[in-house]
């Protein structure tokens, strides 16, 4: 039994049904974590002296619109001691998605969570500074959601030039 399987076993013993191992894909071990348990699970993985996952390597989100549960928040934890990567996945619903921040365990989650909030509109409860990070602070909508259009400049021809010009946004003032 390799070390990652031990980690998953120990997680299952500790948290029971709240942690479900996901199917291994291309040799990556991933577990599905109940969103309400994300902070205890991260704290457990971080503090356990056998594993000590001390580095949050990546935090991002995938939007599976129009499926439910719509959002998957993906965490990649790295253990420097054992040189292993463990993926955590938390599924969130499409309406009012929210999950606790793991900033208290991994301080560098701060900006990563801000980015996910900015791009997907996921609220991280308890976050110290949940503002937009990449988009302008007064932007409306969350651009990386699948129902958010890519956006193109409409092509104007002579027959519809004025009509498009009317509804085009200019910096008029």
């Amino acid at each position: 039994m390799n070390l990652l399987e031990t980690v998953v076993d120990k997680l299952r013993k500790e948290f029971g049904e709240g942690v479900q191992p996901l199917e291994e894909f291309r040799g990556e071990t991933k577990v599905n974590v109940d969103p309400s348990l994300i902070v205890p699970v991260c704290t457990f993985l971080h503090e356990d002296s056998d594993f000590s996952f001390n580095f949050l390597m990546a935090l991002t989100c995938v939007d599976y619109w129009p499926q439910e549960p719509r959002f998957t928040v993906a965490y990649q934890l790295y253990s420097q001691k054992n040189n292993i990567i463990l993926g955590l996945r938390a599924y969130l619903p499409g309406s009012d998605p929210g999950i606790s921040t793991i900033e208290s365990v991994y301080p560098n989650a701060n900006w990563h969570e801000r980015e996910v909030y900015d791009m997907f509109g996921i609220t991280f409860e308890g976050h110290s500074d949940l503002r937009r990070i990449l988009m302008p602070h007064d932007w409306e909508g969350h651009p990386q959601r699948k129902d958010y259009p890519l956006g193109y400049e409409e092509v104007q021809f002579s027959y519809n030039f004025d009509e498009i010009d009317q509804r085009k946004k200019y910096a008029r003032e």
Partner: protein
Amino acid sequence: MSQQETELTLEELKHLVTNRAIEGDTMVLNMGPQHPSTHGVLRLLLELDGERIIRCIPDIGFLHTGIEKNMEAKSFEKVLVMTDRMDYMNNLGYNLAYCLAVEKLVDLDVPPRAQVVRVIMTELQRIASHLVFIGTHALDLAAISVFWYTFREREIILDVLEMCSGQRMMTSYFRPGGLWRDVPDEFEDAVREILRTFPKRIQQYEDLLTHNPLYMDRTKGIGVIPAEKALSWGVTGPPLRATGIPFDVRKMQPYSGYEQYDFDVPVGTNGDTYDRYIMRIEEMRQSLRIIEQGINNLPPGRFRSDNRKFVPPPRSELGHSMEAVIHHFKLWTEGFSAPKGDVYVPVESPRGVLGCFLVGDGGPNPYRVHFRTPSFANLQVLSKIAVGHLVADIVAIISSLDPVLGDVDR
């Protein structure tokens, strides 16, 4: 909407500044985004007590171009071109991270020759990136001459990249399954010429900076990252190794055959700006070692996989093979499809851990691409290490983290 409403107000940032700023006792100074020493369009809000920084609030996103969103609308082959545009100092490193992720997702083999060429090219790119770092870092501290030397050598490396890929910077040279084309005949001589001349050139930069008392005064003890906090703050790459932690993805999670190369991971002791500079100098020497081993053992053979479901057939086959025409047509009209699933591949970029998170949904476009970019993660630490220093020092600290703003904002 009037201009007034679109500005960020102090009221919105009051949880990030001290009460003294609200009372008007200290000054909140705007630095950037158009500022010569912020290495692009980085904006900082500095709360100052006289010359001392009390709080530092980075404001990023001025170069956000929605690359990750755009990638979702393109086929796997076309996405590659956009990976160049993120970190314009490390184009090949991004090509590599993306190609490795695609190869992992679709389970595609890479022939040994392509792997060795990939290693040589990314190490050349690493040297070129560190040269820009040393030049601009010294420039920010008013040592202009170093800049001319480093850019002279960088041009020699970019010539090699152009020789192979046709482009100095936006290379798109690595493709899923191997390389765009084989290296030209002159490649080996050009690389050997770099290996011959370069150690002396590195010594020249060291003569200018390493024991320069003015430079040491400006950098020693400035912007110290404590070793025990570094990883939890998300710092990787040379800033992390400067604290003494020998964390290098090339050693820890080898890819592209890095486990076959003999090289050291230099580590520092103090984690300050000076040590970060020393790390880069040493890393250039190690990169030269890797390149030398690569060029001495460059195997002959194919330069890309012959799995025709993912890699286009050579042009010469199109004239007489029906299958080749079908594969060519299929790949250049629709592209190849990836299975459902997600992969995460970390590589070591000159700035730190570069991770590519790639999700496939069974179609010819990636469902989601996310790059865990080292500049973004490293820049976060700025608000923690700048506190207590003088305004003039923050210029040294920013450049020692070596952020590329295209990489931060994507």
